[in-house]
């Protein structure tokens, strides 16, 4: 019994330590804020001068905003895979990283909604969506499902947080008053009563089940923004599962990167261990394998037939204008990392970090390749327009606004990880208890 209390004390000490605003974190937040302000200046320009500040044109009318949106939605799916699917399946190893996955999911999902607004020509008319919404439009489905997904993700993050918030409210000192007050409200009168545990476990299970169809829906609907059109290259019935499988690859890579940074900067080496990296590496291999399979289907089937409009698009992708990016993404960003991860040594933390970063970068460009090149090959030739309409090159303003979305993501993720323990304390305690018994 002595032993267990000692262990609990160490856990609490280790895991509550990062929940405060240290010098480092203030500098980091300051840096993020300054970057955000600089980037927002470009958004101000876009509001004032119109979308003309971007490289978009009448032919490529969806550019990196939309591909970035798809990327963000994709990366946000990971919370569902790790906490829900694996959690419900009884995988124990996900426990210390489940909150990281949830924080990443919530942050990506929240920012995704904002990215869509940055792509609107008339953001001042956002309310039209609610006043005049047409439920036949996949955009309306997307908005409804993104809002729902954010709500469920937040709850999925919050419900298992309640005991830890109560702990913070009781034990953490030296915090601003407002933060203490916030903990008190959010702890909902938590008193470690067994019935309370029963209740949150019940709700967590319900949410974990609920989020699976919603998460599948959010990314399937996002893929339908493309698949529901008649454009050659988008007009594909496997876009839904193709996107979902790709989402898991991007999400696993994002979680691996997150794990590495939280582990080093929050001193959690004894909680997030090589074992977890090894497991994540294996998970990444599995999801990458599924994704490679969908990629083969998506490319080989039309490439075999070379049907009308698709031929031109595929040729430019495989050998033409977009070939370099395409092969870098497919080989460098997917196949090669997949092969490397088959080796145990490559699943150690640092190699994992590097491989995951490459995968994540590849995943971003993959979304670009899905969104942009198709529009450069419309059914009817591009004529009587300036040469700049022939190809799409993002402008600095556009890149800055895209960077802003990442900065915003980092801000949300940092804040969440700074006010809440990144590893579920009570669950860890329960596990320790079980082990001893």
């Amino acid at each position, binding site marked *: 019994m002595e032993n267990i209390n000692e262990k609990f004390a160490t856990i609490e000490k280790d895991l509550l330590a990062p929940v405060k605003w240290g010098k480092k974190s203030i500098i980091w937040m300051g840096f993020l804020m300054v970057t955000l302000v600089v980037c927002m200046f470009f958004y101000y320009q876009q509001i004032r001068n119109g979308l003309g500040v971007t490289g978009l044109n009448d032919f490529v009318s969806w550019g990196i905003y939309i591909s970035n949106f798809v990327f963000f939605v994709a990366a946000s799916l990971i919370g569902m895979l790790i906490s829900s699917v694996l959690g419900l399946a009884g995988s124990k190893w996900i426990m210390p990283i489940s909150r990281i996955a949830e924080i990443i999911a919530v942050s990506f999902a929240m920012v995704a909604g904002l990215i869509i607004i940055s792509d609107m020509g008339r953001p001042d008319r956002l309310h039209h969506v609610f006043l005049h*919404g047409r*439920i*036949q439009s996949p955009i309306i489905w997307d908005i409804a499902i993104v809002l729902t997904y954010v709500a469920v993700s937040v709850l999925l993050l919050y419900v298992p947080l309640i005991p830890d918030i109560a702990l913070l409210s009781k034990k953490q000192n030296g915090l601003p008053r407002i933060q203490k007050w916030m903990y008190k409200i959010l702890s909902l*009168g*938590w008193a470690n009563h067994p019935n309370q545990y029963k*209740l*949150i476990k019940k709700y967590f299970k319900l949410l974990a089940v609920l989020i699976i169809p919603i998460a599948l829906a959010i990314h399937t609907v996002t893929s339908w923004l493309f698949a529901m059109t008649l454009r050659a290259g988008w007009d594909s019935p496997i876009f839904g599962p193709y996107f979902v499988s790709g989402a898991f690859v991007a999400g696993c890579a994002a979680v691996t990167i997150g794990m590495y940074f939280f582990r080093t900067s929050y001193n959690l080496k004894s909680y997030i261990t090589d074992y977890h990296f090894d497991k994540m590496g294996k998970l990444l291999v599995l999801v990458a394998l599924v994704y490679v399979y969908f990629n083969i289907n998506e490319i080989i089937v039309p490439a075999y037939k070379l049907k009308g409009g698709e031929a031109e698009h595929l040729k430019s992708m495989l050998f033409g204008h977009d070939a370099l990016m395409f092969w870098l993404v497919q080989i460098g960003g997917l196949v090669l990392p997949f092969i490397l991860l088959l080796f145990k040594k490559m699943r150690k933390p640092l190699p994992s970090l590097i491989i995951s970063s490459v995968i994540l970068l590849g995943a971003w460009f993959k979304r670009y390749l899905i969104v942009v090149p198709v529009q450069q090959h419309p059914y009817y030739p591009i004529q009587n327009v300036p040469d700049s309409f022939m190809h799409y090159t993002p402008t600095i303003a556009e890149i800055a606004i895209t960077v802003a979305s990442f900065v915003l993501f980092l801000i949300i993720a940092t804040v969440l990880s700074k006010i809440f323990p990144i590893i579920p304390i009570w669950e860890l305690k329960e596990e320790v208890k079980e082990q001893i018994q």
Partner: protein
Amino acid sequence: MNKKFYILFTLVCLSFSLIAQESWEVIAEENDNLSIIMFDEELELSGQIIYDNSCKSCHGNPEKADFSKMLPEPGDIASESFQNQTDGSLHYKIRIGRGAMPKFEDALDSEEVWNLVAYIRSFNKNYIQKKPNLEGIVIPKFSLALSFDENIDKLVVKTIGDDNNPMSEVELKAYIKGSFGNYLLGKTLTNEMGIGYFNVDAKMPGDAEGKLEVIVKARKGYGSAKTMQKMIMVQPSTFESAIKGRHLWSTAKQAPIWLKVTFFFTIISIWLMILYVVFGLKKLKKYS
């Protein structure tokens, strides 16, 4: 070499076009044809409207010489080459057309063409309208009576002179009125009974009662008559609105029922579950 060839080619084309312009001969009778109505501002204005609609696309703005680059050149109506022609010649050329110049005979009636001539003349300060010598010429007066013979699907036009006798040898043109122009049913001369027949395609869509709006224009010498009448001539047709029914492309109000049900059922049930959890969390307080 190439350049020389090009110049030569242009010259040949140019000379052809000049020759072509020169050689558009108008038979004497038409050349001397004159309007029996005095050109005035009113006529000019109606002519201008017709000009803007039907002629401007090639001949451009008068006095600006901004006509289309075509061969032969359409020319500016204010230019000398136009103004040097007789009224009758202009009238004839507009009616009959040649090459790229459309034949307007079936689209515009004789008076409308005179209005155009009046408009063309308004750019010539020195123009003095020539008056036709109408002495000794009898201007026929007649009226038109329309009926439809459904046994033979023919429109029957009867011309009756002011002496109540049928008038023969009257040129008749019958049209079906359309939204943007009139469809020529045919041209004919009245027989000795003063009757002209026009075939009507029974498959032509009419209105809800099977009515079509018929326009008949008649001319004999300087005399002319016109009449317009709605008559039952074809099978009644019903026109469906292009947006009838519920489709994926309909407005929000007309969205397909199955979609509405699925969408709202899904969203509402998910949010009910979310609310269930949110309000359920209140129960935590009970145990504290």
